[in-house]
């Protein structure tokens, strides 16, 4: 029960930080959604990194490494470490400048102004929300799994999902972007430390060395594929270098770019980003592969890290490390929830006259109402979906947003691009998502 108590203490700390942010908040949408565009350099890095690291990064990666081996690191992590900082460098900085110059708070607003077309914004809004909800679902699933596994089943999966969804919702509901960013500082530091500490602790608790287990995997023809990429087609591996293009198209990433105080905040972020990915993914992938020897035959390998921690770490440390995993889960979920409500409020509610009718305060109330509705939908789907975290993320969120990246690139760098081209491209992505359902 000790790990559960530690995790609950962590959740209370998150709640307290959110409350403090709420006390500092002002009743206008610029403050609620973008923290008055005043996010400093180091906080910007910690927050934008938390924005992108989901349950996928810790639970999904280790679970998939358990199934497919070390290739998952090159497939998702090192390719992300190359592509994402490049997109932040070339696209994120331009988005920031345009947002500052014209007051945009979302990418949808930018697209509407860029091509002077309301419809393109509405279509991109609808598609973005449809692709973002699966991403929210994996966060809720991840939270439920952590609480369920770490409590040895005492906290039911459905209750675990509900607790995480509730804390995230309350944090965004009251704290807005400021609450989200403040919580992110604490969360990112916690989950950046998670990997190294987990490896050290598990190593200490094993009867043999890591090298012994890896040699055992490598010399057995049935398991050798786990420490090579012999079952991973080279073309499949290459195709995943396109997946991280999704990152800059995530509405929550674009909104974070708008929130920076100065464009120089991006400098530190793009350099540290690949190293931070290394710090999280390398231990998770390695432990996922190691888990095939220590915890063989798992039906749902997404929980492999939790099994390893429960069996090989002291209870209190397992709790802190569990909190580290939940940090990754919640850090991104809060941004996703905030992004969905920001887009709804600015791109639909205000755009179609709601703000004129209900005023600035009314807009914030509607944003909060929308947060509740979307989280509830994501929660219900999280309880019934049979898909794994990896599958959900890749099939719906990553592929869809990556396919939308050309629209962003055209908007920023192709002067002769037209609204018809952008609209056709967006509808094509929507059609393919439906056709490959």
């Amino acid at each position, binding site marked *: 029960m000790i790990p559960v108590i530690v995790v609950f203490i962590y959740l209370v700390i998150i709640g307290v930080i959110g409350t403090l942010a709420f006390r500092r908040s002002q009743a*206008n*949408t*610029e403050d609620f959604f973008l923290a008055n*565009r005043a996010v400093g350099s180091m906080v910007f890095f910690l927050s934008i990194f938390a924005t992108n690291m989901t349950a996928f990064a810790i639970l999904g990666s280790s679970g998939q490494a358990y199934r497919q081996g*070390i*290739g998952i*690191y*090159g497939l998702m*992590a*090192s*390719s992300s*470490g*190359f592509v994402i*900082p*490049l997109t932040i*460098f070339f696209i994120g*900085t*331009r988005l920031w*400048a345009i947002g*500052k*110059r*014209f*007051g*945009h*708070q*979302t990418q949808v*607003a930018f697209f509407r102004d860029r091509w002077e077309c309301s419809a393109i914004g509405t279509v991109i809004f609808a598609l973005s929300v449809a692709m973002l909800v699966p991403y929210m679902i994996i966060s809720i699933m991840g939270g439920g799994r952590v609480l369920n596994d770490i409590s040895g089943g005492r906290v039911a999966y459905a209750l675990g999902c509900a607790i995480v969804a509730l804390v995230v919702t309350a944090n965004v509901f009251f704290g807005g972007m400021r609450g989200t960013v403040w919580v992110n500082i604490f969360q990112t530091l916690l989950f950046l430390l998670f990997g190294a500490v987990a490896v050290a602790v598990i190593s200490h608790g094993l009867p043999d*060395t*890591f*090298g012994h287990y*890896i*040699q055992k*995997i*490598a010399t057995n023809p049935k398991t*050798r594929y786990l*420490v*090579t*990429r*012999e079952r*991973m087609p*080279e073309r499949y*591996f290459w195709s995943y*270098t396109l997946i991280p293009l999704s990152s800059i198209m995530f509405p929550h990433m674009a909104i974070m770019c708008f929130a920076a105080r*100065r*464009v*120089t905040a991006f*400098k530190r972020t*793009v*350099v*540290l980003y*690949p*190293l931070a*990915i*290394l710090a999280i993914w*390398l231990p998770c*992938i390695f432990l996922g592969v190691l888990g095939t020897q220590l915890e063989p035959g798992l039906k749902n390998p997404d929980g492999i890290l939790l099994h390893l921690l429960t069996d090989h770490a002291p209870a209190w440390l397992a709790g802190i490390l569990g909190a580290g995993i939940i940090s990754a889960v919640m850090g991104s979920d809060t941004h996703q929830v905030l992004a969905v409500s920001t887009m709804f409020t*600015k*791109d639909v509610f205000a*755009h179609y006259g709601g703000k004129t009718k209900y005023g600035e305060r009314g*807009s914030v109330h509607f944003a909060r109402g929308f947060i509740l509705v979307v989280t509830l939908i994501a929660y219900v789907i999280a309880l019934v979906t049979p898909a794994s975290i990896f599958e959900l993320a890749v099939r719906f969120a990553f592929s869809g947003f990556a396919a939308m990246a050309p629209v962003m690139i055209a908007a920023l760098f192709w002067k002769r691009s037209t609204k018809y081209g952008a609209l056709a491209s967006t509808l094509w992505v929507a059609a393919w998502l439906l056709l490959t359902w």
Partner: protein
Amino acid sequence: MKLKAYLLTALVAAIYVLHQDFWNWRKAEPLLFGFLPVGLAYQAGYSILAAVMMAVLVRTVWPKHLEYVEPEIKDPKGDRS
């Protein structure tokens, strides 16, 4: 200026190509530090290389002109969506 752009484009393209380390595809050994399979160690090193590449880009082609952007709207809290 043009030469610098060409060189940096070539650098980024070369690093992109290096991601596809086909020569490590079927190898597990040698194990770095006695436990890290070579394919995983290579890709971990690649992440460090990506950080170095970004540091070079920040130093050489940072979009300095963006640092002087000023808002064109009177009420920054107003709604432009």
